[in-house]
């Protein structure tokens, strides 16, 4: 582990292990007493070379590969890829397929936000809230399983459409599940905006101004909590979003509390739009359209809104049945590099909450270490210990 010594300062390496995230990171924090004075990030501990691998597989095979870029937001990766292939081939999936893509995407957003909410509560030392939110998350996991057959990697998309239809029994199950979740979400919004103990960990912590968010290129709920109007579903509607729009959820304070509120309020938008699609007007028609096996030379850019923010795909075809180049830019890289700068000037005890505030799935990190160089004493801290330190600090 790389440790550097500056005059009277300690460098604290955090990471790199967090198996739940596709991008485990190693963070090196330099501290002066309790205050963080600089921070840097090193990624790639589970770099699997997917961008290279797609160049050696066919368009159809790549669907299954790219869906596995991320375990939490798998559907949105497959959606971005399918939309891209359809664009390159000059075909459009039928409206019914696009609406079903939107339903699954929003269910995925619900499960992802609730997962994050539980993890964030855990990092704050509020384990009751963590257990309640994950219990409630099972509702949406069951809905996704009932709809697609899988709890993760739903495999709802095929090139040119979707694999399955939503019948009325499934729609009813989803609608009643949403009623339960909505009731619970009201409770959670109440907790994060009124619970004084929780607010001490979130209010005024990790503030990112609108200008910082713009300059540092933050995306998704992290940017929206700082007042940046950036939501691809609204700006450049894809799949079913022009037919069934969502409205943008914003906040202006830019602190951790705002990031909590934006994500929780987004859940209400997801409930509303899923209800609208399922109750009124799932458009009639086919589920798929034909996509050619070979795709002519072409290139395109696809942007979609993953639960964590803008997901960017650049795709280039070369006339064969394999892609020439696919570039995947995930939202976490944008937010990771912007938020890591926000830790500067904060208490060491705030670091877990600031990092978890961008939703990088930090909970499984267990190789944190504090190494004290100046006296020659080496001291290793696990992530668990740093988390506990943060909780004790605010007790």
């Amino acid at each position, binding site marked *: 582990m790389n440790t550097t010594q500056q005059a009277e300062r300690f460098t604290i390496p955090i990471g790199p292990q967090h198996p739940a995230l596709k991008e485990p990171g190693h963070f090196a924090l330099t501290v002066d007493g309790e205050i963080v004075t600089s921070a840097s990030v090193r*990624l*790639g501990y589970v770099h699997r070379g997917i961008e290279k691998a797609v160049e050696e597989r066919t368009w159809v095979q790549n669907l299954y590969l790219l869906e596995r870029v991320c375990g939490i937001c798998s559907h949105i990766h497959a959606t971005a890829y399918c939309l891209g292939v359809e664009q390159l081939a000059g075909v459009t999936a039928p409206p019914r397929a696009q609406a079903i893509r939107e339903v699954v995407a929003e269910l995925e957003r619900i499960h992802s936000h609730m997962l994050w909410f539980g993890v964030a509560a855990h990092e704050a030392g509020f384990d009751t809230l963590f257990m309640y939110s994950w219990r409630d998350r099972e509702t949406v996991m069951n809905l996704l399983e009932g709809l697609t057959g899988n709890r993760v990697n739903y495999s709802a998309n095929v090139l040119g459409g979707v694999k399955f239809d939503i019948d009325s029994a499934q729609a009813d199950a989803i609608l009643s599940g949403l009623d339960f979740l909505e009731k619970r979400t009201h409770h959670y919004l109440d907790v994060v905006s009124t619970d004084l103990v929780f607010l001490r960990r979130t209010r005024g912590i990790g503030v990112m101004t609108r200008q910082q968010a713009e300059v540092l290129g933050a995306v998704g709920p992290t940017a929206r909590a700082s007042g940046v109007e950036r939501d691809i579903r609204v700006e450049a509607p894809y799949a079913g979003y022009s037919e069934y729009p969502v409205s943008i959820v914003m906040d202006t304070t830019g602190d951790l509390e705002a990031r909590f509120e934006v994500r929780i309020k987004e859940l209400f938008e997801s409930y509303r739009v899923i209800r609208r699609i399922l109750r009124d007007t799932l458009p009639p028609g086919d589920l798929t359209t034909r996509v050619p096996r070979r795709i002519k030379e072409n290139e395109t850019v696809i942007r979609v809104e993953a639960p964590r923010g803008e997901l960017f795909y650049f795709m*280039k075809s070369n006339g064969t049945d394999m892609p020439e180049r696919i570039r995947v830019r995930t939202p976490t890289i944008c937010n990771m590099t912007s938020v890591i700068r926000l830790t500067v000037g904060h208490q060491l005890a705030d670091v877990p909450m600031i990092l978890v505030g961008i939703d990088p799935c930090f909970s499984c990190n267990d190789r944190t270490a504090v190494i004290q160089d100046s006296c020659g004493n080496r001291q290793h801290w696990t992530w668990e210990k740093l988390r506990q330190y943060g909780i004790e600090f605010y007790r």
Partner: protein
Amino acid sequence: MNTEATLHLATKMVSEWATETQVSEPNRVDGLMATSEDLLNAVMMLRVKRLGYLAAITGIDLGLEAGEFEVLYHFCAGPVVITLRIRTPRETPSVPSLSHYIPSAEPFERELSEMFGVAVVGIPNPERLYLPDDWPEGVYPLRKDFERSALNEERDHEYDTTG
């Protein structure tokens, strides 16, 4: 600003510095830059007019025959995607760093340089971002002529079980 107005403004700005400008898709402006200076000028202009943010940098290996790499800078402004592209020879590939003007460019540039071996001139932190510390020097995985054997030789070692 609506899509047409953004597209119009972007086309005007890009064509000032590009040798070739085209609207390749209904929401995309694409400009080919001849030199590093033109690229930097175009980037500065987008920054000054506050048009879009840097969404990604894509490297493409155009192949041994073409003998060039292409580097694409994607800026997003609402629904419009502005792509500035520049070509650089395979023998001595290099592009200028945007990190001084756009701090968020740094991780993309680090990725570009480790994956393609394109030198990013003036980058504040040239260290690797994704590839492991023991990755062999001079092996760039996203190049089309990347050979896996180069990797196996270097990395097939006995694990040290003593420590």
